């Protein structure tokens, strides 16, 4: 997903190497941009032309299990290969109903990019960067008043964003059996109130109600945004597209709720199509792509984190140097250590739709946070109860 042409020099030699070691296997690599990736992938399933090995984000895996488009890989992976992955990551991302459905690949722990130039303009220092969400509104207010720029650019209505906002505060989305909504709690109301107040008070851009994840990245690159929450791999883009911003960038850990230290680990996985005629070879290739050596090499190029236990013990993630890249690895390693993979949920896409809708209604002032949560609970229970 969105790896060509930037990583051709990594993947093409790897594919060549694998084909040399397995003369009866020929690999064709197809890559699509992240936007609408899943739609294009689903169309390939409909056309019975889906790839054998598929790159999926961990949170979308259950949709594919439910649709019957990917298969369990239990029968094709040996216990030694399976034991190589960080158990916590393997079980939360790949195991569903006691079966293994995908292999974890690279993790993208979010970090916070800070534009020190904007802090200077506002007469602030790195000490003023909020460590907790409680401090975020005041930070945004000062940046706005002193520089006319924005401190932070939240995403409110894209993909799983609302789920993540709730999850950060420790709010469960559904009951353990997945049959009922479980998010209508005082903590969830606090989350909705906090983020909508930030919006109502004009402390974040008003266009954030319709923004996708690309918008804050663009604003950060233009030097209009003080803080950006994103994966560290974006630093490569900043270096190429906005070298001045890159030079002014520092990286720190994400702000959190003072009473919930949770942080999210976005994870890429490799699954195998149910219609694959080469399931065994597909799993073997997925194991090859995710082995220790290949994951370390990929992490070096992308500033992502490997999902294999031995790879994480590499000095690269243990003793980072003091360059910005080194500090990014250090922050990413700390985030990975405490980060959790968003557990796949049944009806994930429908949950997203409802939660995004009610968040939008709250921001538009149509409903209060309490009413929004009640509406979402009712709509989701309607579907889950069918």
């Amino acid at each position: 997903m969105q790896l060509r042409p930037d990583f051709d020099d990594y993947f093409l030699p790897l594919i060549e190497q694998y084909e040399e070691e397995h003369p009866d296997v020929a690999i064709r690599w197809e890559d699509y941009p992240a936007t609408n990736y899943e739609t294009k992938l689903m169309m390939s399933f409909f056309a019975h032309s889906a790839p054998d090995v598929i790159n999926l984000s961990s949170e979308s895996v259950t949709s594919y299990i439910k649709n019957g488009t990917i298969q369990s890989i239990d029968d094709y992976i040996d216990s030694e290969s399976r034991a190589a992955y960080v158990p916590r990551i393997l079980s939360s991302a790949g195991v569903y109903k006691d079966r293994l459905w995908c292999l974890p690949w690279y993790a993208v722990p979010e970090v916070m990019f800070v534009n020190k130039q904007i802090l200077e303009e506002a007469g602030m220092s790195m000490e003023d960067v909020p460590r907790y969400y409680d401090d975020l509104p005041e930070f945004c207010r000062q940046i706005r008043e002193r520089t006319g720029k924005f401190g932070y650019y939240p995403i409110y209505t894209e993909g799983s964003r609302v789920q993540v906002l709730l999850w950060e505060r420790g709010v469960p989305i559904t009951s353990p059996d997945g049959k009922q909504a479980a998010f209508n709690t005082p903590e969830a109301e606090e989350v909705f109130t906090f983020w909508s107040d930030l919006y109502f008070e004009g402390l974040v851009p008003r266009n954030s109600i319709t923004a996708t994840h690309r918008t804050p990245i663009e604003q950060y690159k233009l030097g209009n945004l003080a803080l950006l929450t994103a994966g560290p791999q974006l630093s490569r883009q900043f270096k190429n597209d906005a070298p001045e911003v890159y030079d002014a960038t520092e990286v720190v850990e994400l702000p959190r709720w003072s009473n919930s230290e949770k942080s999210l680990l976005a994870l890429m996985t490799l699954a195998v199509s149910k219609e694959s005629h080469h399931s065994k070879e597909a799993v073997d290739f997925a194991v090859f792509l995710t082995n220790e050596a290949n994951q370390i090499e990929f992490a070096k190029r992308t500033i992502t984190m490997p999902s294999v236990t031995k790879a994480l013990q590499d000095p690269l993630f243990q003793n980072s140097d003091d360059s910005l890249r080194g500090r990014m690895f250090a922050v990413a390693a700390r985030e990975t250590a405490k980060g959790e993979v968003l557990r796949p949920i049944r009806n994930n896409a429908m949950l997203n739709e409802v939660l995004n809708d009610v968040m939008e209604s709250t921001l538009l002032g149509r409903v209060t946070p309490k009413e929004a949560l009640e509406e979402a609970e009712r709509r989701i229970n309607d579907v889950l109860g069918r």
Partner: protein
Amino acid sequence: MAWVFLMPTIIVMGVFQFLPMVCAFALSLWDYFPNAPENQFVFLDNFIRLLHDSAFWLSVRNSLLYLLCVPIIVVLSLGLALLVEPKIPGIGFFRACYYLPVVTMMVVVAFAWSLIFDTDNGLLNAFLAAAGISEEGIGWLTNERYALWSVMAVTVWKGLGYYMVLFIVGLKAVPMELREAARIDGANSIQSFFNVTIPSLWPVISIASIISSISALQVFEEIYMMTNGRVGTSTVVFDIYETGFDMGNGGIDLGYASAMGVVLFAIIFSFTAISARKMDSMYAK
């Protein structure tokens, strides 16, 4: 022999237009998911579900509101055509300028206008603030009162050039003798315009109205790019996309999306039929 020449068109239209239409009608009666081991025939359930879907009816309302673009486009493009139709040195430059948005990709147009309409840093609000009209900044794309109208303005702006060209061709076809006869009979330029030019242009006006109506009812790209269907701007086609194809937000529900498509087809078909009949009767007079 005639059939041999017609076959390529019949095959292409049959495979890529009529067959998908028939399939969509059939799909609307199913709870359908490709590759699923079993799909359930639900008959009219998807249509009954539509009746109770307030989000869908908001989209229908927005799609119908979008039809307001039609008279605006027709009047403005006719006005532009009148301005650039005369043979004046350098007029080709202005024609090209007005036509430029038509050949520019909607993605580029929508992106540029999103920057202009940006609530906090947009050009339009900066201008209004400088002129002392609004210090607060208007939520062109973030306020329910303005968002749909702002997107409609972009649709009108982008489409003007295309209809302007249609009207230029129409104006060229107005017989000079008629205009001269009117002038000799004592008609001033306004009388000549309403009594000679407009009746002569009626076929072009009909075509422009029908084409722009269908385009308005099928609007998608502007909405997708500028508001992502948020802030009360979703239209029926956007709803069909979200319901049928957007895996990240709503999932894939092809049967229900097909039912929406059937309703949209009915709306467009009825609207076009009524407009065509109305235009014909007016033209006959």
